[in-house]
């Protein structure tokens, strides 16, 4: 089957210029195909066509989003850039956190695969993002996962959620990466289109930053890790069924599943192997193999370097028989990395791989030329300028139009909806809300994740933010939170994205860490829908403007389009991840109250009548309409400064930010997590319902030791942050007592809060 005439070589392509090619089936448009012919001055070979088609896909080329994403760069000031060692465009952003440490973090979506095969889809999502972090030269330290599912009681959710959770746990636990946070959100638009976004954070000494560059002619290209199989080449198997190969078995591959199976053990060993390689200085450049496999790794390495690259494709160790060059180049087999290594270091490199029992193969070398040349059994099957594959894909200005329904949506506020007012209605509403799937305890999920491994986890679920210690000597650490409320984004994508940023930022700040950088995972419907593109562009602008106002840069991110079932797009879901740094993790502020006797509860920030898009409107009235809460980033910044000062001076013993479910939810969680009761007195001059369930942004509930109360409140007053004494911690009562509403025994609240997910999914 490797006999000469079956190979579509460059030579063969030149001699058969008019041969019809299945570019449409591979997802390329007519003009895109024409451009490839133009670039090459001939028709592409089968292998080249495979490369261009995957690299120019939406997923790899960002062709619909690029024009908008530029705005992130345009709004990043020099000051914001100061601590950024690598930014958008690299595998993952890197920031300097001080003491010589650099931290890298990034999120990625694995939505569609997780719908098709929940366990493996989610597992390989974790695997992929971890390799991105390794490609920066960092040791992966922790993961987070941000999840969206259909309604909690939908049959589809029952199928998808347990598999996704088990997959994330199964893979992450086996890698020895603590899971320190994330989200689980249920909503009707995610039926048939769950969102599985995984985030990984890693650290390295700043001088060890490895960027994906193939520099230095003569340096060797080494592929290491798992063997290459037929995984995830669903689209490209079209080629195998086409004319050239003449191979019967290949023709039979047409309906290959594009599902990949993960092997976390191989990845774990790969991590240790990479770290030893980095540690010994044996790597010039490195790239992970993710989407688009070798096509991506070779073209990106080559185009980011200063020369070309030559690859002998038949040296790639294979797992399946009779794979064609196009298939090998597009395979998305997991757990593989590609390194550029000095010739003099190759033996040492191979020895380290042998120690870890990792398969490693020299597949080519960096060349002087400017072309990426790939041979297959002596014939050239690829000869392209690598930049045209990796970076010069098409860029679309998709039509953008604000949907005509948007005005009606915004006019349909919650004002007309029935609101509870007397004590017993409020009491019933509170218990019902606490047990609602979106507000109930996430323990059923998080118990399946190892949060302890490696012994550096300082805060993890339940907490507003995950926090890990980076440096055992100094106690320096980082905090990470992810957030997004898709309902707010539906009502106003610009404000919604800023609210996601504000919440994530606040979640980091309430732990006492200082937010320093942002990543995102932008999940939207189809880019061919002008309304979706409007949501997208508004969200990007909102996020970028918000970051500029807060003074923290977006260092990277991910775009996932085509999240829709039929014509119905998901709610716009721009998940925002914020990274913070804390000089000494011993000063972290936990959620649970009651650590010290006689704490006072203070509510910081302003409460307004803001219930449009709220969890209450969703749970009680199944209503979505109106305007999202107001966002005030200057206030968020002030709040953050107060929290950091409070942490530094030991003035705060616990804190919890207010978000979904409002004050009621924050009070319940603070009591249940702290296993301590409290007595609360609401403001008699304001509607109780609004006080308990409004979702106004920029608010935090803090517990302050009585001795610190004057100092803390004076600081707030002096700096112009509104505060209100809301109650006291009451270790004796075993209840959350809200004066003039009800006294809620903690065991009643716990049953309501913790019972929901087990009842649904056990």
């Amino acid at each position: 089957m490797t006999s000469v005439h079956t190979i579509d070589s460059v030579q063969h392509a030149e001699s058969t210029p008019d041969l019809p090619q299945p570019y449409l089936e591979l997802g390329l448009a007519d003009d895109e195909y024409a451009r490839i012919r133009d670039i090459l001055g001939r028709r592409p070979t089968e292998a080249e066509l495979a490369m261009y088609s995957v690299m120019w896909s939406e997923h790899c080329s960002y062709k619909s989003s690029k024009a908008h994403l530029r705005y992130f760069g345009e709004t990043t000031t020099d000051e914001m850039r100061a601590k950024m060692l690598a930014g958008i465009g690299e595998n993952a952003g890197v920031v300097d956190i001080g003491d010589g440490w650099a931290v890298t973090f990034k999120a990625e979506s694995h939505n569609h695969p997780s719908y098709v095969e929940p366990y493996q889809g989610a597992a390989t999502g974790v695997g992929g993002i971890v390799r991105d972090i390794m490609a920066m030269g960092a040791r992966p330290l922790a993961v987070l996962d941000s999840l969206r599912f259909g309604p909690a009681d939908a049959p589809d959710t029952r199928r998808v959620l347990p598999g996704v959770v088990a997959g994330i746990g199964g893979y992450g636990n086996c890698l020895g990466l603590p899971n320190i946070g994330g989200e689980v959100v249920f909503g009707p638009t995610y039926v048939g289109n769950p969102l599985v976004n995984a985030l990984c954070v890693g650290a390295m000494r700043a001088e060890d930053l490895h960027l994906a560059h193939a520099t230095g002619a003569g340096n060797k290209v080494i592929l290491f890790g798992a063997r290459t199989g037929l995984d995830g080449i669903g689209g490209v198997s079209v080629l195998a069924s086409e004319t050239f190969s003449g191979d019967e078995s290949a023709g039979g591959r047409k309906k290959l599943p594009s599902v990949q199976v993960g092997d976390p053990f191989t990845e774990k060993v790969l991590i240790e192997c990479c770290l030893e390689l980095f540690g010994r200085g044996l790597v010039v450049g490195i790239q992970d193999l993710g989407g688009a496999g070798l096509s991506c790794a070779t073209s990106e390495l080559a185009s980011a370097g200063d020369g070309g690259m030559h690859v002998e494709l038949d040296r790639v160790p294979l797992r399946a028989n009779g794979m064609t060059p196009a298939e090998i180049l597009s395979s998305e087999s997991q757990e593989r990395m590609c390194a550029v290594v000095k010739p003099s270091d190759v033996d040492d490199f191979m020895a380290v791989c042998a120690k870890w029992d990792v398969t490693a193969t020299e597949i080519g070398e960096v060349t002087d030329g400017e072309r990426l040349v790939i041979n297959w059994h002596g014939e050239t099957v690829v000869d392209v300028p690598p930049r045209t594959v990796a970076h010069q894909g098409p860029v679309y200005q998709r039509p953008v139009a604000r949907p005509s329904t948007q005005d009606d949506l915004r006019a349909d506020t919650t004002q007309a909806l029935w609101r509870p007012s007397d004590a017993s209605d409020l009491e019933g509403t509170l218990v019902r809300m606490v047990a609602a799937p979106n507000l109930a305890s996430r323990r059923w999920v998080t118990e399946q994740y190892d949060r302890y491994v490696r012994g550096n986890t300082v805060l993890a679920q339940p907490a507003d933010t995950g926090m890990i210690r980076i440096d055992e000597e100094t106690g320096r650490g980082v905090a990470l939170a992810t957030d997004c409320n898709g309902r707010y984004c539906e009502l106003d994508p610009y404000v919604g994205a800023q609210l996601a940023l504000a919440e994530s930022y606040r979640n980091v700040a309430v732990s006492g860490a200082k937010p320093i950088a942002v990543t995102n995972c932008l999940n939207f419907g189809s880019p061919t829908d002008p309304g979706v593109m409007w949501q997208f562009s508004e969200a990007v602008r909102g996020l970028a403007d918000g970051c500029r106002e807060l003074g923290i840069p977006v260092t990277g991110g991910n775009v996932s389009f085509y999240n829709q079932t039929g014509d119905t797009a998901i709610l716009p879901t721009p998940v925002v991840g914020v990274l913070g740094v804390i000089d000494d993790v011993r000063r972290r502020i936990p959620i649970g109250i009651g650590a010290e006797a006689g704490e006072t509860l203070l509510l910081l920030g302003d409460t307004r009548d803001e219930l449009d898009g709220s969890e209450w409107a969703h749970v009680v009235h199944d209503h979505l309409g109106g305007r999202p809460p107001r966002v005030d980033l200057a206030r968020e910044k002030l709040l953050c400064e107060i929290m950091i000062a409070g942490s530094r001076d030991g003035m705060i013993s616990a804190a919890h930010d207010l978000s979904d479910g409002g004050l009621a939810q924050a009070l319940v969680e603070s009591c249940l997590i702290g296993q301590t009761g409290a007595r609360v007195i609401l403001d008699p001059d304001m509607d109780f319902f609004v006080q308990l369930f409004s979702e106004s942004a920029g608010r935090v509930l803090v517990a302050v030791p009585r001795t610190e109360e004057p100092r803390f409140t004076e600081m707030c007053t002096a700096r112009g942050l509104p505060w209100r004494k809301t109650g006291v911690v009451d270790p004796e009562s075993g209840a959350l007592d809200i004066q003039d509403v009800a006294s809620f025994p903690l065991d009643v609240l716990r049953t309501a809060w913790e019972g929901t997910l087990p009842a649904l999914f056990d």
Partner: protein
Amino acid sequence: MKIGVITFPGSLDDVDAARAVRYAGAEPVALWHADQDLHEVHAVIVPGGFSYGDYLRCGAIARFAPVMTSVLDAARGGMPVLGICNGFQILCEAGLLPGALVRNSRLHFVCRDQWLRVENTHTAWSSRYERSAELLVPLKSGEGGYVADRSILDELEGEGRVVFRYVGKNPNGSLRDIAGISSPNGRVVGMMPHPEHAIDALTGPTDDGLGMFYSVLDSLVAA
């Protein structure tokens, strides 16, 4: 005092075990799975993780590692050995401790802070505790259900070789709530929960686990 901590490919909690040894004031020594040499350590910890991926059965492949031959010899000679989680599974697979660990009864991996009761304070690894003391220690495993023949269970109970028992709701279906057991001479202990993750209230629920590492130092000094 030197305490060896084995690293298999796929070991995860080896760094944590080494840290616990350090916190207790001893010197951790890294032992490599492929190396028979125990480097003159005075005791050995077989740590948690997923050795070789644990795809076949937890611990099934690791027990054949060269280093385990030396550990088995040393254990028979009285060297204290502690198997934690995957380490416990490996010691059972290797026949150093009786019984086996099976899939949790609720089928899910479980990570939670778990109360344990100390049932035997005469082993090399538990002498620092008061009898019936209750410890709060992380449990994190998918295959933590301890099973053995009834006759073996009776023997373990009769000889006082149940070292730790779960308190409260049984988290994984372990027979007789067994969380940890010892060899007849009390030198080898295997347990599913992770004392090495309870050495500092900053990163674990408590520091209740430190006692195990102090215990073994006591036993080595006494020996």
